[in-house]
């Protein structure tokens, strides 16, 4: 009887573990976030850590493009539900989900992380994102389950 209970317990652990635990940060993204934290502290000695709430606001926040006069945000291409695939605002090309819980390939290569922050911050905000913004965004996207 005791053994059967043990098996049931194991079964419960196996089945429920992926459901309750949020996505763990991989070493690459952890190192990237740490680097952003150091930069944020340098820019503002009062920096008190990244904030998922600010990251979420950044994701949904709209910016009117100075030339095109169109409202742009992260969700112009990625979806409001970051766990589903989006599509490119101009070309319609499918874009795999951005939330790491839905797409394990996200944020696994530093070069890619830098590249897409670079391109997409410029596209939406017409400027680079600050280390604070990058850290906030990543903190938020990893809270999604």
């Amino acid at each position, binding site marked *: 009887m005791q053994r059967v209970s043990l098996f049931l317990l194991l079964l419960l652990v*196996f*089945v429920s573990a992926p459901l309750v635990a949020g996505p763990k940060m991989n070493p690459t993204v952890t190192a990237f976030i740490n680097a952003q934290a150091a930069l944020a502290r340098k820019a503002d000695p009062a920096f008190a850590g990244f904030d998922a709430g600010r990251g979420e606001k950044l994701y949904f926040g709209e910016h009117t493009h100075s030339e095109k006069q169109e409202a742009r945000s992260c969700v112009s291409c990625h979806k409001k539900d970051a766990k589903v695939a989006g599509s*490119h605002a101009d070309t319609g*090309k499918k874009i795999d989900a951005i939330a790491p819980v839905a797409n394990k390939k996200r944020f696994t290569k530093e070069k890619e992380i830098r590249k897409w922050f670079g391109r997409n911050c410029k596209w939406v905000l017409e400027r680079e994102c600050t280390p604070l913004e990058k850290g906030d965004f990543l903190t938020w996207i990893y809270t999604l389950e």
Partner: protein
Amino acid sequence: MNRILLALLLLGAVALGTTPLWADDDNHEHKKFTVGQGDPHNLKPVDNEIYQAECGSCHLAYQPGLLNRDSWKALMSDLAHHFGDDATLEPEAQNQVEAYLSENAADAIQGFYVKKAAAEAGKPLLRFSESSYFKREHHGIKPQVLARPAIRSWAHCEACHKAADRGVYEEDYTKIPL
């Protein structure tokens, strides 16, 4: 008895964490094609990883055979203003993509129809969709069809041409989404 239970349990755990290996996201049959004969329905597929990764993230990695060398050169010389987007590449990627496009351009390997289209315009054609050939082939597509959320743009070849990523634009492999 307990061993059998344990084995079943482990098997279950493994099954939960994996995707079936036999899954295939293609819903069309595979067929062999002759490529590189100048047939715009059947282009040499893209076989360059850097081009695929760098350009193919935002739009279909268009087969180099769709445009002439001059066109690719003109496109690649101003990626900072790439149809309203800044698509600048790192120098190494820039060089590799440029070389690949140049070596596999329409006039380098096969095409003549694009050359004709380019000559019509009097300057390098930057969009294949602006060629007279393309327009003729798509004349039946009404603006309201193009505007459908699943299509949206002439740049979105794969919306209708289900095998566009393999260079296949034949009618049999074309389905206009509603």
